């Protein structure tokens, strides 16, 4: 079978001469993450997998060799919560809101206030509003999404992409950011957990036009009802499967099927109060949970709370910024000042407390922005190696794929980032990226502030 495939692929060999199946990078510093740093060594890649790593790793004959003198090789970064690959979920403008993978879960660029729903507004939980729990991100991946290239150029080889829309968006998939012809080539794991949201974007006073649910408590009640229904559905299905005779058959409900198939859920939480609420809620639903957002994770009460529940969390790199062009006489709240001042300290506090966490881009897709965001965390106390781990092995562990990615180890997928200079230093350049063993050059960087709206005060830097 393999020979057949190889024979079929042979004609394409010229086309992919740029991407030899066997290559080696040598004389480089290798930060494996799962093991000690190799000061000068070689990484050998064959068929998209890491074949050898080490000071004296043997380079196979015929391998394309790259001289990595003065360079450092890292595992490719994993963005643990993303919408890259689903173009319709790209943020409408510049930056997305914090704690949401997309700026607005509603598709396209309809302004939040004038939502004209395609379906009539829901009259209750039975209408299953904003629920597409059966969707797998893997089925929606569009390899032509421009963001694939730009995010990859920032050092990300892998994204955990979620169909982040509605209340039950569907399950996320882990995708490797190769430039592929078919989406299927990108998928590493098709289903990693259900994406849940407790708002639909838009105004808080969204009115009755949008249907049920409208208030936060409505969303929570709806989610609770769905899980109750799923439990009941399962009971009935199993009973029917055991012996259908004389029993009314249960109605097929794909929303519940989707919920039952999800092995974990993702819930948003930025404030401490929200973390407490969501952890409690997930425990009530008996669902393993990953919280995302985590703006107030720097607060003293946060780490012990998270430790108590043992759930991993995804910390947004979109740190709170002071308002641009603020009214000089406007008062900021103490809380918002602390968010700005101490927000980036969250990762180091979580690290010290032993809370499993990963960092995610949360809409930041320019290398400069990402590098600066990670640097802020490092400046606030996160060890550089822990920062790297939080973008590589930790997300792999959280999603249960640490056996195949997240570090540079034999047998793992060849997702690598090669830099001149240590990652997350100001002047570090990304030289090349390898995804599934395929080599890519980073794209030219976008100019600063491109597409984010005019800055009213020229000369005021960010």
């Amino acid at each position, binding site marked *: 079978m393999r020979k057949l495939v190889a024979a079929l692929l042979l004609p394409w060999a010229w086309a992919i001469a740029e991407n030899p199946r066997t290559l080696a990078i040598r004389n480089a510093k290798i930060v494996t993450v799962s093991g000690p740093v190799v000061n000068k060594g070689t990484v050998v890649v064959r068929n998209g997998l890491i074949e050898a790593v080490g000071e004296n790793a043997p380079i196979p004959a015929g391998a394309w060799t790259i001289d990595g003198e003065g360079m450092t090789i890292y595992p490719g970064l994993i963005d643990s919560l993303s919408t890259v690959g689903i173009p319709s979920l790209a943020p409408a403008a510049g930056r997305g809101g914090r704690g949401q993978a997309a700026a607005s879960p509603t598709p396209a660029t309809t302004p939040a206030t004038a939502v004209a729903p395609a379906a009539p507004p829901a009259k209750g939980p039975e209408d299953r509003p904003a629920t597409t729990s059966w969707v797998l991100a893997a089925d929606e991946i569009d390899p032509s999404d421009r963001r694939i290239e730009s995010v990859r150029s920032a050092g990300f080889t892998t994204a955990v992409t979620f169909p982040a829309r509605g209340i039950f968006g569907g399950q996320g998939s882990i995708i490797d950011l190769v430039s592929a012809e078919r989406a299927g080539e990108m998928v590493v794991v098709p289903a990693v957990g259900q994406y849940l949201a407790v708002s639909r974007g838009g105004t808080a006073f969204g009115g009755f036009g949008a249907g*049920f649910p*409208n208030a936060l*408590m409505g969303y*929570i*009640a709806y989610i*609770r009802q769905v899980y109750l229904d799923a439990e009941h559905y399962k009971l009935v299905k199993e009973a029917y499967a055991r012996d259908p005779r004389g029993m009314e058959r249960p109605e097929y409900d794909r929303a519940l099927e989707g919920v039952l198939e999800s092995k974990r859920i993702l819930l948003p939480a930025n404030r401490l*109060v929200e973390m407490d609420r969501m952890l409690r809620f997930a425990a009530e639903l008996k669902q393993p949970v990953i919280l995302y957002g985590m703006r107030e994770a720097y607060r003293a009460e946060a780490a012990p709370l998270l430790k108590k529940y043992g759930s991993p969390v995804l910390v947004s790199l979109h740190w709170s910024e002071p308002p641009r062009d603020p009214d*000089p006489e406007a008062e900021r709240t103490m809380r918002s*000042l602390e968010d700005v001042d101490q927000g980036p300290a969250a990762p180091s506090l979580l690290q010290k407390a032993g809370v499993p966490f990963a960092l995610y881009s949360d809409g930041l897709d320019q290398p400069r922005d990402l590098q600066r965001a990670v640097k802020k965390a490092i400046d606030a106390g996160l060890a550089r190696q822990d920062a790297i781990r939080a973008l590589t092995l930790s997300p792999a562990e959280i999603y249960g794929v640490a056996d195949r990615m997240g570090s540079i180890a034999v047998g793992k997928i060849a997702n690598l980032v090669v830099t001149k200079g240590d990652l997350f230093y100001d002047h570090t350049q990304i030289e090349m990226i390898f995804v599934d063993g395929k080599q890519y050059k980073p794209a030219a960087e976008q100019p600063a502030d491109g597409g984010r709206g005019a800055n009213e005060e020229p000369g005021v*830097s960010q």
Partner: protein
Amino acid sequence: MRKFWVAALVTLAPLYAENIVIQNATIMTVTKGTLQGSVVIKDGKIAEVGEKVMMPQNATIIDAAGQYVIPSIIDCHSHIAVDGNINEGSVAVSSMVNIKDVINPEDIAIYRALAGGVTTANILHGSANPIGGQTIVLKMRWGKDAQGMIFEGAVPGIKFALGENPKRPGNPPFSRGIRPTVPARYPATRMGVEDTIREALNEAKAYKAEWDEYAAKVARGEHPIPPRKDLKLEPLKEVLEGKRYVHAHCYREDEILMLLRVADDYGFKIRTLQHVLEGYKVAAEIAASGTGASTFSDWYAFKIEANDAIPYNAAIMQKKGVLVSLNSDDAELMRHLNTEAAKAMKYGGVSETDALAMVTINPARQLGIDNRVGSIEVGKDADLAIYDKDPLSDYAKVEKVLIDGRVYFDRESDLSGRPAKALEKQKLIDKEKQSRPRPSGGRRPIG
């Protein structure tokens, strides 16, 4: 070694509930008269009240000479400490939602309520629905998390609403040509409000029958598949079973009477009528049904259904035998329910004790928590408010508030803590300013 143990005890001491004695005060117990004396608190409960008391060991003394101690205030109608919209107004019956899911223990309104002498509040869903969401009673334990705020053991509630508010979504504004008209939501009239409530209770009755049948089967040793749990109907089932209190927002006498009769038809009692501004017109009927009334002291004519509101409402209802409380429904008003009580004395000649009762023991009884709070009696929770003057005077202000025998508000500490807080804040403001270049300063000329 001994030093170690002493040190350990000293550091551990705050973990144990302190003994506190509030002494030399005018104590208005509400249920057992007023006296000059002291209150002894042990383990968070009132241990002794009297002119002379036994001083426990290691008690913290609060000298309240010239001051007044009352049972801290209970607000029977509040919307503070909630995250998100207070209404799930998209559907006419939103009994599936629960305030308990969205408690925000960091709402500054909690602290401000404390500073106004309130320590317990009945947090209600809004009034956009004939049948609204489930409600909860909280203690204003500022600093605790959401769970820590919950009044343990209080009977859960649910909100009903009658009159203009729940029918507003049924009468959406005309389209302005720019925005599509919001679809109308049934009901649009008081008739529809009654119908909506009856329909929902009807459904709940059938649901209950389903579950009763299931229980009976199980009791017989069978293993049937349970019915589907419906979060909308569960709380209504509990209402029918008398396990959940109904708090009904209402104004006009016709709708008040309507609801009492609907409850009769379905075999349960409304626990409290809220606002009930025309309650004085049907006070006899309310008294006969054993329903409590929780009202404003003197709000009137802000909408047409409040047009016949009179400040004598509480006095008349009380006279006719209704259990009356005064509430705020407002984060500002809840800070001075003591003076709202004084208004009941002004309008209708309610006695001082009865007036104070309207914000203490009466709401406690209405919420079924009078075994724990609402008066200064031995065995009850040490939930107390200390005022510098007679609390029924509008010259009085709150000095200290205790919940479960712990000081949660102290005006002196609040005042003395302000400079440090301001300094801390200024440090962060300055730090932030330094990390960004200033825009061109100076005052800009005005036209």
